[in-house]
């Protein structure tokens, strides 16, 4: 993320100084990628305004928050602007990859059995996979958040293996390999172009798809 995108959330929150705002306005007039990122952030905020603000369960949230950690602030949503006056003001900021990772995590752990296993899961010492060593730092942080969940899902799938026949297992493994290959491709591309908005979103999407497939397969035997 460059110095401009780092300021987009504050721009939306109208907390920039007059000089910073004018400088960013001038940059936005010439940078389509930043303008598109700003539009995307606006859409997220607009959609958020239409939703109830219901806090998640304490256990769920503490686990996710631990795995996200703190990092570069890009997306910032000022709750005070959207909440009723009776609510207290609270503001949390997350980078785009972090926010996407949070989505991946929450989706992945929505399976009750998997989540139960995660609750007792000790956060491991991270061993970056070979294709993640050179990716931008923010994505290494995302990996730190997502990898334990993916490991747990893989474990759940492995434990579910006896409920699946060999041809189903083979097909699942083949499709996981396809997704892993796509993740590796995206990471290599992102390493060469770390500020590319499309690549960041694309990587987040294929990572989510892997978690989604694992979650789906982990429940196949249960359902059938």
């Amino acid at each position, binding site marked *: 993320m460059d110095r401009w995108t780092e300021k987009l959330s504050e721009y939306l929150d109208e907390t920039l100084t007059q000089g910073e705002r004018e400088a960013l306005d001038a940059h936005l007039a010439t940078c389509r990628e930043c303008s598109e990122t700003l539009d995307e952030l606006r859409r997220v905020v607009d959609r958020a305004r239409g939703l109830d603000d219901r806090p998640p369960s304490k256990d769920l949230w503490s686990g996710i928050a631990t795995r996200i950690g703190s990092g570069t602030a890009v997306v910032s949503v000022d709750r005070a602007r959207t909440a009723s006056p009776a609510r207290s003001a609270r503001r949390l900021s997350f980078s785009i990859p972090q*926010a996407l990772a*949070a989505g991946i995590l929450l989706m992945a752990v929505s399976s009750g059995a998997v989540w139960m296993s995660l609750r007792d899961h000790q956060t491991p010492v991270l061993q970056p996979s070979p294709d993640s060593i050179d990716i931008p730092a923010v994505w290494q942080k995302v990996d730190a958040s997502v990898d334990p969940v993916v490991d747990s899902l893989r474990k759940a799938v492995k434990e579910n293996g006896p409920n699946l026949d060999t041809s*189903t297992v083979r097909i699942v493994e*083949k499709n996981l390999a396809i997704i892993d290959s796509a993740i590796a491709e995206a990471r290599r*591309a992102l390493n060469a172009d770390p500020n590319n908005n*499309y690549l960041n979103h*694309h990587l987040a999407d294929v990572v989510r798809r892997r978690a989604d497939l694992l979650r789906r397969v982990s429940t196949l035997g249960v359902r059938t």
Partner: protein
Amino acid sequence: MLPILLAVMLQTPAPSPNPAPRVRHVRPPKVVVRVDGGDDDTQYKANVDTTVAVTRGARLDLNNFGGDITVKVWDKSAVRISADNSDRERVDIDVDQQVVTVRTSSRYGAPHMVSFDLTVPAWMALDLEGTYTDITATGIASDITATTVQGDVDVTGGSGHISLNSTSGSVKLAKAQGRIDIVTVNDGITVSDTKGDLSAETTNGDVELTGIDADNVSATTINGDITYDGTIKDAGHYSFSTNNGDVSVSVPQTANVAVTASTFNGDFDPCFPITMTGSHKHRFTFTLGTGSAKLEMESFGGDLKICRPGEVGKHHNGRNSNKEKDEDNE
């Protein structure tokens, strides 16, 4: 705000503005018709073929371990259940005014293959599930849920909420209307002549959507092509994404749409003249008309094409068409 942010990101597509109403009934005292059952071994009977009367609004719930499920319609308020089971399998049928439940079990150990032919009223909602099961339904005018692990799903008709799932099998849907969710993993998705918001997702297969009339369409695959030939409506949202494949989309001449096309290793190739409003690295943007609708096309490794309705097929080379799937069958 983070809970809200998460909810936004995980939010499923909005329901269709005008989904078909679900019929609700006050639950009456249950009347059970056990066509074939009991623990007595003498109750096992081969080739069940029976017809039960049903009340309008009842749904069919069939769970079959293995064997095909074929459903067609007639104009009677009754369900005919025909199974090709041997006397080693038992077919239990429970009927009440809300649901007709059909289950199979085996005299010895794991259930065996039983194929079903069912004839139902067109208004009857279907909930069909199997493991090694091909599912075919024709003529239904109500909700349909069809889920299989290894098998194809082929539905013609459906109205309301239509949810079709397979793990290793193709999914085909035609002449449906309502809110449509389709997921498979290791095969393609084909949807035609269908009206309503549509979500289609596979990992290893093509997605082909033709004759679609929808405000919101989302199609994703990892290894496959995506073809869309349908409406682009004002304020609509159309999203097509693949990792390794081409994306071909038709855009009517009168469409008001803001287009974002992103590809890392491929080309963007419009079939008609356009004026770019932005071109940054691997992303192209342009606006047609007022730009009311949003169209997003993404392929990491393939080409992106925009053509006029009816032309996308001519320019679609289908280079990835089920290549990996074919290898499975070898």
